[in-house]
């Protein structure tokens, strides 16, 4: 008898049959292939953004307003200054509205509401808010702030629409972090005689802060890329305008307008603006990840 191979002799009946082994290999290959396929679009989007967008980046691209003339030569169409400033301003105001309210609601859910019936209702409505399509937020704000007041588009109305969109994201992520804070921490503070509000402001919130920053930054990144809620709330304009009470340009709306243009130079401006927008959003994502890695809680 020759030297036994590992799967011969009395152990042969434990061996995986060739058919099963083939099936296993095939399935694993398919799963791996699907994973690769999932990453292809990301690579392609990044590649095209860089190859088309970098070409239109220049100092004058970032520092001049778009002009209305799109049918003349490339140098006369202008850049995206008003769009960048508008996006920064609209998103800043939206954050100023959504972050305090969102964290307030999350604190209420975790510290006061807990598992009460009313808290369940609030959680349900936050979930509802999460699922609302972004364009419907635009319609809401249009009805209330434009039809309702009889006035026209304005930057701050766009901020309200984006704030509605950010709210559920902020509430959910803050709630997740607040739930992680050990009850022992709250109980020790209470046992030392601290009133509830001091426990919240001096113990709970500072402990949760780094974790909450992550969720907040991701919410901001999400809002910055939204076009639909801004279309009929902040509208679009060419001129740089720092007054939130008037029409205001923004990067997503500028891109959306430029996509439909028949002029190549204008489409190239859309690529440049898209690269700018994605760079801003990725930066926020990166900061969020760095902070979440350093935070002990999340």
């Amino acid at each position, binding site marked *: 008898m020759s030297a036994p191979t590992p799967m011969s002799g009395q152990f042969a009946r434990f061996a995986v049959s060739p058919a099963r082994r083939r099936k296993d290999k095939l399935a694993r290959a398919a799963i791996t292939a699907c*994973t690769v396929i999932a990453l292809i679009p*990301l690579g392609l989007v990044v590649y095209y953004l860089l190859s088309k967008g970098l070409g239109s980046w220049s100092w004058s691209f970032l520092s001049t307003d778009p002009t209305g003339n799109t049918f003349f030569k490339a140098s006369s169409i202008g850049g995206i200054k008003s769009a960048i400033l508008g996006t920064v301003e609209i998103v800043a105001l939206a954050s100023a509205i959504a972050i305090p309210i969102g964290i307030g609601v999350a604190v209420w859910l975790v510290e006061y509401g807990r598992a009460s019936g009313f808290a369940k209702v609030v959680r349900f409505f936050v979930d509802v808010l999460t699922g609302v399509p*972004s364009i419907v937020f635009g*319609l809401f704000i249009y009805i209330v702030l434009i039809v309702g007041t009889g006035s026209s588009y304005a930057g701050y109305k766009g901020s309200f629409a984006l704030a509605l969109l950010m709210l559920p994201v902020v509430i959910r992520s803050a709630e997740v972090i607040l739930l992680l804070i050990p009850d022992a921490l709250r109980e020790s503070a209470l046992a030392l005689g601290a009133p509830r509000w001091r426990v919240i402001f001096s113990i709970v919130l500072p402990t949760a802060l780094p974790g909450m920053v992550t969720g907040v930054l991701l919410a901001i990144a999400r809002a*910055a890329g939204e076009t639909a809620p801004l279309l009929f709330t902040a509208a679009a304009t060419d001129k740089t305008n720092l007054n939130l009470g008037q029409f205001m340009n923004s990067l997503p709306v500028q891109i959306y307008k430029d996509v439909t243009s028949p002029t190549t130079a204008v489409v190239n401006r859309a690529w440049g603006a898209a690269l700018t927008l994605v760079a801003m959003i990725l930066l926020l994502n990166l900061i969020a990840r760095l902070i979440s890695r350093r935070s002990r809680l999340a």
Partner: protein
Amino acid sequence: MNTAAMPGGDRPILARSPLARLPDRALKYGLTILAALILALIVYFFVRLVGQARPAFAHAGVFGFTFNNDWNVSGEKFGALPLVVGTLITSGLALLIGVPIAVATALYANELCPLRLRAALTVLVELLAAVPSVVYGLWGIFFLAPKLQPVEQWFANRLSFIPFIGGDSVTIPNYFVAGLILAIMILPIVSAISREVMATVPADHKEAALGLGATRWEMIRTAVLPYCRAGIVGGAMLGLGRAIGETIAVTIVIGDAPGLGKHLFGQGYSLAAVIANEFGEAQGLHRSALFAAGLVLFVLTLLVNGVARVLVSRASHPSKTPSAPQAAVGPGQVAGAVAGA
């Protein structure tokens, strides 16, 4: 004898004075009011939206508005069937293409991937969610759609015997491209939720399967997938909700043709796209019809998301806390929560 007498009058020594309790009360009631305001706001928005949509519903009836196949702005005819069908076709395609790939990605990350690659893979998939909708639209119309057109034409010619695939000429913007873009856009959320649910499969079950001699794939099929089925279906439904409501990318790549597309590779319209595209110039009944389209969209996403939430929360913790599917939290889960939001 009670040595801890009451020097300050008739209240216990450890109790706070009414004045000192004031900030506590203010905070408690203030925050409660804040939470209540959110409910009030949503209900108020909903009522106002219904009010704005009423003229269009009165014109054709709720049923007529939703299911009449005639969207003709100049003729003042508003039957939203082409829009509803466009929304359903594109989001159905997105599920068909996106969910298997997303689940496979989650399986790969959880079961097959070398441990060192797992974090990087997760981040990369989540980056797909960081690309704004309008950028997907831009990329879709200038890169994906033109590159795909010959392939689509080939399929359309070969498979023309199947109804709705058609042998007609393929347009650059069409239902299929919109569905494909949507598939890419829902991939991160479906994958994140699948991964979360797969992480709850007890190691015992997996080890038991392997111990009985199962191969990796048999272990996945017999221990992992059955355990996660409800959660994966819920994640897919959340993705569906996303796809139904997605606006700008679809508006750019679907072609915005107001008729019912004749085949998969023809131009069409969707509920969200019609609002984005026509709202700026709409007046009177037309505007009301767009509000009504928004309302139909809102109700549709509400239903889909409601079912999804129930499935996901049942799957991720059968008996634990009442809060969202994120009760058990580990590193990176905030990102998951946000992607899921």
